[in-house]
């Protein structure tokens, strides 16, 4: 099936603006420092780095992750910062302190309606640029302790609300729900929940005022506009905003508008949730309008494309199964992917495969990835995601509505709060301590060394648990997520913020384990050369890596030439199973104060790029300046046998036992046979990969030599449009940090399935 989709003039205009924002650094996302990437906590800000304001890092210090932000930069700080209630009355650890700031901030966020838009709502500042907030010092101390041993993390808006709740209730309905529940808690004299719902009411009213301002502004624009095309758009905006101030959306365009506003209200506090299954959320609205002849397939596609262009990083997913576990693909699934096909470039959508997925839809999604070549939509395995949630302990009821929700993670929509992708365990560090211990005590047997290693991993896990638990004690008082709570199952009914204990049904803490393949390769090489062949001593090895293998090139080669994970060699792949199982069982044995266990994720955001220098050389023959492996992917350039052996190694792990583990793959354009539809090749590859148990594919079609040239000629406009799937997220190549670029061009660029 060939679908040819062109942008009409209106979408073309919006597309141009979106590109302009991305290429001119108006969408950049920063982190404070390399430590944030490695430990997922900078030691300073409790989240990603605010772009302006008192907790913002210096421009020379912070790292640019690329155009991965919802915020539209306007080059100035928030002008009303001194009027923030917490600045005027002081910051305190209570939910109403937060709510007052939120309401003030939203009230002073300008209305922005751009020409040609039919879906509106954007923002220039995030709340963390204006509101000072800080965890107590004890938390900071625990964080630094954890970092010393190789762990860290933040807790911040990384879940997937169920927008179905809001689309059904509207803001008036949500306000009513808050008030009704408050009466219940007043009766029971539950002051804490009454306080919480008071704060929720303040936030909800601010939201209602905000939409009202948009309706008024659009009205005025419609009245004063002469150009009929623009006038029509303003009129549509005015009516849909007016209709959803308090009422639930009653048409397709209102529903899309409602979703965009919700994203604004949420994203304005910082970075970022997923928003569930757009095809399920919108199909009812679409069908109703379509049957009344108020909507066409094409216009619906334009509006969804517009939603994407408003913030090209929407984590929506498509496909998957319904509650009866039948294929859930519907016409909106097609519209959702077609809308991306129309815009291309940067976005974060997920196509959820399962063994009964609609074949044509799946082939189309694969073709879109192959043609656009920058990892969108991300291909994920619904069956493995659901199985892993069930294994964690989710109920059947909570697990069917799962969605690819963030870069490399997934969520049960509206039913969990888990810090996905926000906690880090740097597995190299306990290994380094174990090596030192082995040298100090002259350990000669592998079994003894292994026991010490396990003990050291345990120490790292313990400090992480302490740090997280302390954060959980404070999170709902420091930075409650009230807007998210509105669209979750539980918080309003329970009178507790989503970040608090006993608010939602599932609270498993997920931890990104960094450097697993490097530890696997290192442990294997040490087992072989130090403990079995006794060719070197541990002391010699520590000496060599402490000087980055200086004058020890032959020794380095010896370690480098040991079998490596990623080549379908059972001996070393068994080590991969052992290492990953050990850290998994260990994390699963630890519990958070919410009563749920920890669990490992075998992926990483971008920590592997900076971790190399921070951690030094490793016994896998890696030099300090080389990045670590990305997630569970084999170390760069060590998988020399081609894609299939790499996949075989990779899929020896059972991904239902882990919370994600994406397979990163860079295909050269010549990979695809001449004249063959790219989708067929991608589908062939992806379907087999998923049948082998893989969970996610981040696929780029790119000539890495072009990227190298781009790095040499950053001013050349020819390279400005290149978008790559960096890890779980996409960005314009030229916009992101140099170190990220360097890591990217080291990857294996497959020209065929063989090498």
């Amino acid at each position, binding site marked *: 099936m060939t679908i040819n989709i062109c942008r009409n003039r209106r979408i073309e205009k919006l597309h141009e603006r979106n590109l302009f924002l991305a290429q001119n650094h108006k969408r950049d996302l920063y982190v404070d420092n390399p430590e944030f990437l490695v430990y997922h906590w900078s030691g300073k800000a409790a989240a990603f780095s605010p772009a302006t304001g008192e907790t913002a890092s210096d421009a020379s210090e912070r790292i640019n992750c690329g155009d991965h932000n919802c915020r539209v930069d306007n080059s100035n700080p928030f002008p009303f910062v001194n009027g923030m209630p917490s600045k005027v009355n002081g910051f305190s650890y209570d939910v109403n302190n937060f709510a007052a700031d939120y309401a003030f901030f939203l009230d002073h966020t300008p209305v922005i309606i751009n020409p040609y838009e039919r879906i509106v709502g954007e923002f220039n500042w995030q709340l963390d640029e204006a509101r000072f907030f800080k965890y107590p010092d004890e938390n900071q101390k625990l964080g630094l302790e954890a970092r010393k041993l190789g762990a860290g993390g933040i807790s911040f808006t990384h879940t997937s609300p169920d927008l179905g709740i809001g689309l059904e209730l509207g803001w008036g309905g949500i306000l009513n729900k808050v008030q009704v529940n408050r009466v219940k808690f007043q009766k029971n004299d539950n002051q804490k929940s009454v306080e919480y719902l008071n704060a929720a009411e303040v936030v909800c009213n601010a939201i209602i005022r905000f939409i009202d301002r948009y309706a008024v502004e659009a009205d005025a624009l419609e009245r004063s506009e002469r150009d009929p095309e623009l006038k029509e758009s303003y009129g549509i905006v005015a009516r849909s905003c007016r209709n959803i101030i308090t009422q639930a959306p009653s048409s397709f365009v209102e529903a899309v508008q409602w979703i965009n506003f919700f994203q604004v209200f949420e994203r304005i506090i910082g970075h970022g949730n997923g928003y569930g299954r757009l095809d399920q959320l919108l199909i009812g609205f679409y069908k109703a309008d379509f049957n009344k002849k108020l909507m066409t397939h094409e216009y619906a596609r334009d509006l969804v494309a517009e939603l994407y262009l408003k913030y090209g990083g929407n984590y929506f997913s498509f496909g998957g199964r319904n509650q009866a576990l039948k294929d859930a693909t519907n016409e909106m699934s097609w519209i959702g992917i077609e809308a991306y096909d129309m815009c291309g470039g940067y976005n974060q959508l997920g196509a959820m495969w399962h063994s009964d997925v609609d074949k044509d839809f799946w082939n189309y999604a694969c073709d879109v990835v192959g043609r656009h070549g920058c990892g969108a939509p991300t291909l994920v395995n619904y069956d493995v995601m659901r199985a892993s949630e069930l294994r964690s302990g989710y109920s059947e009821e909570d697990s069917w509505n799962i969605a690819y929700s963030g870069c490399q993670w997934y969520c049960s929509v509206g039913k969990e709060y888990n810090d996905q992708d926000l906690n880090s365990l740097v597995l190299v560090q306990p290994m380094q301590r174990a090596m030192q211990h082995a040298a100090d005590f002259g350990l000669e047997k592998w079994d003894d060394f292994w026991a010490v290693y396990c003990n050291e991993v345990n120490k790292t896990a313990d400090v992480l648990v302490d740090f997280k638990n302390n954060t959980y004690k404070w999170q709902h008082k420091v930075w409650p997520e009230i807007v998210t709570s509105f669209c979750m199952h539980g918080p309003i009914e329970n009178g507790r913020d989503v970040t608090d204990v006993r608010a939602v049904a599932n609270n498993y803490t997920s931890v990104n384990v960094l450097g697993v393949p490097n530890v696997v390769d290192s442990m294997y090489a040490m087992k072989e050369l130090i403990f079995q062949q006794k060719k070197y001593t541990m002391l010699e090895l520590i000496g060599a890596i402490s000087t980055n293998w200086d004058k020890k090139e032959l020794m380095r080669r010896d370690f480098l030439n040991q079998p490596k994970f990623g080549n379908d060699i059972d001996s070393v792949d068994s080590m991969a199973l052992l290492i990953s199982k050990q850290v998994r069982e260990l994390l699963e044995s630890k519990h958070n104060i919410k009563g749920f266990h920890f669990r490992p994720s075998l992926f990483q955001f971008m920590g592997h790029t900076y971790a190399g220098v921070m951690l030094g050389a490793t016994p896998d023959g890696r030099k300090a300046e080389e990045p670590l492996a990305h997630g569970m992917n084999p170390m760069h350039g060590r998988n020399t046998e081609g894609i299939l052996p790499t996949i075989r190694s990779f899929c020896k792990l059972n991904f239902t036992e882990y919370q994600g583990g994406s397979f990163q793959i860079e295909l050269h354009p010549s990979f695809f046979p001449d004249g063959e539809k790219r989708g067929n090749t991608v589908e062939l*590859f992806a379907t087999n990969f998923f049948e082998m148990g893989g969970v996610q594919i981040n696929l780029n079609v790119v000539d890495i030599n072009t990227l190298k040239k781009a790095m040499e000629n950053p001013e050349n406009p020819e390279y400005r449009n290149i978008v790559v799937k960096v890890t779980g997220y996409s960005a314009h190549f030229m916009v992101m940090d140099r170190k990220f670029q360097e890591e990217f061009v080291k990857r294996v660029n497959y020209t065929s399935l063989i090498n």
Partner: protein
Amino acid sequence: MNGQTAVLTEIRSLSAHDGPGLRITLFFKGCSLKCKWCHNPETILSTPELEWDEKSCIDCRICEANCPEKAIAFSESKSYIINKNKCTVCGTCVATCPSKALKIAGVSFTVNQLFDLIHRDEKFIKRSNGGITFSGGEPALGYSFIAELAQKLKAFDYHLALDTCGMAPAKAYETIVPLMDLILYDLKEINDEKHRQFTGASNELVHENLSLILKLIQQNNLKTEVWIRTPLIPAMTDTYENIQAIGKFLSEKADGSVQKWELCTFNNLCIAKYRKLGKEWALEHSDLLTTSYAAQLLKVAKLSAPIIPGINLSGLTKTNRKT
């Protein structure tokens, strides 16, 4: 029969270029021709050979010290010299090389080993409507091995292709053609004198064997297709006369089983292989075909062999000049 082995230089997983779909291509070592342009020089000799990769070599000279036959020497300029009369390809140097710069081209496999390697990728192959291609070297030289492997694969319904230069005994084709779904057959040069000059052998047998294959297909009512392949080598086979003459030859000989004729444009990507083997390559500095000239040759081919349904060009790269 179970003891049969064959020496292969490469098992290429999921290649898109040797028949329909994604294929596993087996490169058998040993060839009956010595084409000047040969792109797989490591497959010419039937026995294993040592390869040295200059780029990976770190000049540690451990190989020199460890060679039991004293067959390795280094010159002043880090260039590695191997005395092929002394080298027994024992592999000692390969095992001790710290930078993996040394490799033996040619590994021996049994039928079962190859079958197992192929069969684990069954889903990939079948989902793409691909198959297995026997290539080389000249795979038909080892026909009894191929027949055994092909029978085993046929039991699992794999699509099988033989990539042959046509220089093998009639017995070879009689044995294996009935097992094949596709024959990729080379017609390189129609002028016998030139053929001898370019490949070291007369083309008489090549022409006879094509007739034999077509006869085998017809007599046995086989559904086997034949695809002709002609390498377009600058200043050798890439003349109008040659393409026209091959076209005429095909028009006279071909029947319904000849479905395609592919003109494979020359490239010089194999130079690294020659260097690794320590061999000179006469075509190292040859120009690539221009895209327009290649297009003209394609036109000539189509005019001269209208009987063949699919005639196409392959192998043009970005570096082929546009003019």
